[in-house]
């Protein structure tokens, strides 16, 4: 660890009364405490990440060599469908809920979320959704035949999901599991919005809310608008499948394109929704490890809100190839390009935050650096994809696969790793191992880039996505081989991460209240925080209350 600030050790936490295992379990199962729910969301999300990661390992094993038959086409199609569905709906979405539940009340000086029971309800619905999704491997077609797991891809283009082409319950599992999972996100979103509006501590004006909270607030707003759209589309799909309705039944006049519109009206806000927790994390971690306040915070807030609004009007850039009119294609090129501007503003501001600071190389900060560079790549390939004529070549090829893994792994997952290294001491009260952390970081960076950089080129030389095998001699062999090697390096890195979490939880160094010498309110309480968060509700006068406290001669509020 780079910082060697000799902070006073905290008072030993009040020793908990002796609990039997069942009592301890009950304490978790019956909890309505946002922090516990936050940890449960995040923990469950990590479990799904491991499961989804295992699926990815099999996918890469199958694609490592041409004409390989590790798995057959049906199994492969289920693998990538389940991988995508898991990673989006049961990793990225619950991580948002996890981070906001744990941190938003702490950061704005509240005792809890304002609707704690709704919160618990959301978590259990989400968990049911996840279990239902994986029950599809056991139920329906049965264990031996690999069950009837969904196999229509994570965006499940109709009419492939209609009864005529998807017999058996696989698409029902897909729709129902995601509808259930959506409850978790919706419950959290209503909670975050109401908590931010109604439960801020005295002095915590909207302008003083930490950037993390602002980002989560925008995320919640987008979820409120986007998830119901998906739910509505899935209701229509289920009506088609169960009552014989014709929404997407192309044999009776239904439109396959309408499903695409409906899915991406949800789907494009969704991709910003899942990158926002990483944005939120960077906006806290980079300032603290650069020892400077976030550069241009009003611009950052403006940018995130702008992204939140523009992202509602860019969805059809997923559909350039469906033959929309030249005018609508041009419109969606323009809106997709415009959204790059506020995104760029964010990257510039993070860089400017480091500029002139004193950067400390903790693991969390390293992940932030990798995020910046990788997300820059993702953003620029995003611009390439927004150029519709170029997109006609790139869409549905491995270039797209590379692009969105750069945003979702290089962006979201790296951001979540940074968040874990940064807030784990607060949640558990112990420091994570920096040595293991550095190993994790370097293996992850090498593995990730080795996996996905070659896939850009694979797309350019004509490899479509979602093919279960390919012939040799098309120029794809070598790149696929290295891509698979990279995937296994990532697998090892993630295992190190898991080991680090468990090992540090058992024998990590005690963290103290404020191991990073940070400035937001969560670091003013004990680690882990008590159930009521703060002994006394804090009163703040600036966006960095702990800076004011530590520098009484030069407090922030003088400059507001």
């Amino acid at each position: 660890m780079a910082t060697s600030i000799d902070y006073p050790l905290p008072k030993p936490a009040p020793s908990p009364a002796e609990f039997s295992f069942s009592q301890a379990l009950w304490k978790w199962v019956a909890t309505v405490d946002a922090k516990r729910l936050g940890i449960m969301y995040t923990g469950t999300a990590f479990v799904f990440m491991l499961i989804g990661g295992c699926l990815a390992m099999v996918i890469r094993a199958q694609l490592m060599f041409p004409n390989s038959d590790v798995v057959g086409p049906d199994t492969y199609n289920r693998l990538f469908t389940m991988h995508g569905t898991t990673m989006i709906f049961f990793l990225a979405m619950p991580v948002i809920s996890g981070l906001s539940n744990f941190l938003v009340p702490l950061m704005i000086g509240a005792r809890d979320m304002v609707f704690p029971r709704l919160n618990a309800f959301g978590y259990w619905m989400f968990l049911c959704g996840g279990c239902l999704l994986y029950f599809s491997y056991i139920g329906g077609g049965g264990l031996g035949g690999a069950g009837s797991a969904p196999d229509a891809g994570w965006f499940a283009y109709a009419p492939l999901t209609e009864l005529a082409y998807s017999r058996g319950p696989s698409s029902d599992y897909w729709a129902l599991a995601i509808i259930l999972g959506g409850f978790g996100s919706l419950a959290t979103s209503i909670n975050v919005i109401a908590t931010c509006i109604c439960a801020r501590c005295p002095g915590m004006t909207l302008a003083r809310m930490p950037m993390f909270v602002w980002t989560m607030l925008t995320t919640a707003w987008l979820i409120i608008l986007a998830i119901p759209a998906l739910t509505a589309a899935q209701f229509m799909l289920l009506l088609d499948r169960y009552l014989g309705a014709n929404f997407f039944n192309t044999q009776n006049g239904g439109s396959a394109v309408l499903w695409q519109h409906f899915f991406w009206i949800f789907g494009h806000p969704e991709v910003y929704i899942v990158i926002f927790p990483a944005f939120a994390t960077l906006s806290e971690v980079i300032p603290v490890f650069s020892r400077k306040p976030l550069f241009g915070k009003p611009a950052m807030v403006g940018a995130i809100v702008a992204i939140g609004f523009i992202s509602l009007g860019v969805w059809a850039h997923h559909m350039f190839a469906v033959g929309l009119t030249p005018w609508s294609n041009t419109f969606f090129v323009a809106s997709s390009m415009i959204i790059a501007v506020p995104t760029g503003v964010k990257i510039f501001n993070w860089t400017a935050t480091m500029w002139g600071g004193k950067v400390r190389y903790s693991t969390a900060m390293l992940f932030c650096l990798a995020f910046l560079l990788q997300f820059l790549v993702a953003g620029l390939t995003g611009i390439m994809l927004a150029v519709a004529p170029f997109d006609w070549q790139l869409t549905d090829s491995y270039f797209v696969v590379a692009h969105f893994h750069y945003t979702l792994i290089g962006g979201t997952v790296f951001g979540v790793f940074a968040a874990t290294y940064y807030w784990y001491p607060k949640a558990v009260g112990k420091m994570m191992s920096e040595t293991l952390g550095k190993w994790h970081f370097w293996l992850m960076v090498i593995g990730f880039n080795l996996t996905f950089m070659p896939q850009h080129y694979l797309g350019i030389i004509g490899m479509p996505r979602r093919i279960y095998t390919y012939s040799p001699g098309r120029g794809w062999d070598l790149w696929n081989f290295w891509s698979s090697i990279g995937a296994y390096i990532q697998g090892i890195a993630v295992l190190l991460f898991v080991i680090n979490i468990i090992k540090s939880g058992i024998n990590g160094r005690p963290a103290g209240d404020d191991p990073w010498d940070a400035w937001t309110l969560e670091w003013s309480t004990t680690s882990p925080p008590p159930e009521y968060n703060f002994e006394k509700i804090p009163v703040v006068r600036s966006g960095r209350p702990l800076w004011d406290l530590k520098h009484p001669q030069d407090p922030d509020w003088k400059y507001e």
Partner: protein
Amino acid sequence: MAVPGSHANRIADTFNPVATPAHMEKGIAILTIAICGVIFVIVAGLIVYAFVHYRVKRDEREFEEPPQIYGSNQIELAWTVIPILIVFVLIGVSARVIRAIQAHQPAPHSDPVYATVVGHQWWWEVHYPNLGITTANEIHVPVSHDGRHATFFTLESADVDHSFWVPQLSGKTDVIPNRNNFVWMDPSKAGVYIGQCAEYCGTQHAHMGLRVVAQPLPEFRKWAAAEAKPAVEDPSVAKDKAVFDSLACINCHTVRGTIAQGTFGPDLTHLMSRQTLGAGVLSNTPQHLRDWVNDPQKYKVGCKMPDMHLDDQQLTEVVAYLETLK
């Protein structure tokens, strides 16, 4: 098995275009990549510089905080306006290329070829309505000069979404049920160009291959004339033909001029003029044809053509007949 078919250009490189749409797409791609490359170098350079140059040095006193800078409106304005300008350039260029490709119409007296491509799970049906040809998985087009003899396609789907993609000739256009989409190409060089379905369409999405055979105009005309004829009647295989006609093959396949009039599977009238079997799974050799007819599920698991359980005798007869369909 390597890529089936002999002289196909095996690497479907989008940056090696041979038709106008793909050329235009490559042009705008190079422009975009250049702009993005410059941006990457500058921004990544700044990020790495800030990260390395402003690191905490060993001899520095740890407790001294750096100057607290909260932001600067001028700088914010600068890095908002400059990207907007760049973005507007890209929007303008895109708009032009979009129109040039999507709104392209055949010039008068340019003698275009019209074709209809119908996507099926998991093969392509190809019609030339003006030439009276029906074939599958291989599209013959004339080489085009100065915009003459370009080929204009109408894309339809018989079942689910597919996408028509021949990287060296043109970008993707989705093939969607209940909807007609359009794509055109004007290959400037003779050759065989590989493409395949690019929108996930079910079990055998990976084996929905497509090849475009660009030929000089006279050769194309010759091919079209031969293809428009009904199936060759070869008296030496009359017995084999009778076997074929007695089997369930004819429920799904058409052999023009015979009683085989099924439309569910590919048209077999001139099967032997094609280079591959099963939408690009096997190259079209007598042995492969026999293997394929014997058990298609072995080479293309889940495809709609069942294993017909023919005995050796029938198999030999059916293949003997099929081999005459030149």
